[in-house]
């Protein structure tokens, strides 16, 4: 087991035994990631901060139910995603967008026509913060049905099955949304990254 994960097992055990400092160390290790998940899903800073707090409070209360058969980080992400989805659904109750709403079938979809390539490392033409703003903007512009799937799969690197389970979707539905979401993102980044 890599040293940082071994260390993590020790920290979790200590936190379970009531060592607050051990838990704080775990929190500091992952708070940026958890905030990113929350912000990507809810799209709002205040909501993301609420989710961050609620997720870690819940994690602390339920530490005993962490079995150690998944990564601690994955376990945390699941808690945060559930909190974020609750916020998202609450905020959208009277609007038309629903996360589990079936999306139109692919029959009409065709390969985008594209002749302009991006070059090898298109992201390197931007400064770090500028790039971050571009990436966030593109992600935010996706509808939540696509955004949640792409965030979990391509930003947080969860598997298709984990994503399906978390979102309460079938595996084929995740795959369809992932493809659509990826194509939409690509299209939105195109104007920044295309050559010339």
């Amino acid at each position: 087991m890599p040293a940082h994960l071994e260390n993590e097992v020790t920290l979790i055990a200590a936190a379970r035994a009531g060592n607050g400092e051990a838990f704080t160390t775990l929190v500091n290790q992952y708070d940026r990631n958890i905030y990113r998940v929350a912000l990507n899903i809810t799209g709002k800073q205040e909501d993301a901060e609420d989710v961050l707090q609620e997720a870690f409070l819940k994690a602390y209360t339920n530490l005993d139910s962490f079995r150690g058969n998944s990564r601690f980080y994955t376990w945390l992400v699941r808690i945060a995603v559930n909190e974020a989805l609750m916020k998202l659904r609450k905020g959208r109750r009277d609007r038309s967008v629903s996360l589990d709403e079936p999306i139109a079938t692919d029959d009409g979809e065709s390969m985008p026509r594209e002749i302009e390539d991006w070059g090898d490392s298109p992201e390197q033409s931007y400064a770090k913060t500028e790039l971050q703003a571009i990436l966030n903007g593109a992600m935010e512009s996706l509808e939540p049905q696509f955004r949640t799937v792409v965030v979990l799969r391509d930003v947080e690197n969860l598997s298709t099955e984990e994503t399906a389970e978390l979102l309460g979707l079938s595996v084929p539905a995740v795959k369809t949304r992932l493809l659509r979401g990826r194509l939409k993102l690509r299209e939105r980044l195109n104007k920044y990254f295309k050559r010339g």
Partner: protein
Amino acid sequence: MNCKGVLNELSEYLDGNLEPALIEELRRHLECCDDCRVVVDTTRKTIEIYCNTEPMPLPQGIRERLERTLAKKLKRPS
């Protein structure tokens, strides 16, 4: 395989989950179709760019407020 076929297999291909026979077919199509080649290539880069981003530092004050909220909880024996 035609353009539509490439689109259907695109995600599996980029995730490395496509069967070898289909990979072969897909690559043969890419050799003669510039549109698909560019879309496959730029979609791959899109995924790579997102996969490789490190989370940004937390905005001002968030970590402090989080620690304060947690401290209240941690002090109380549950």
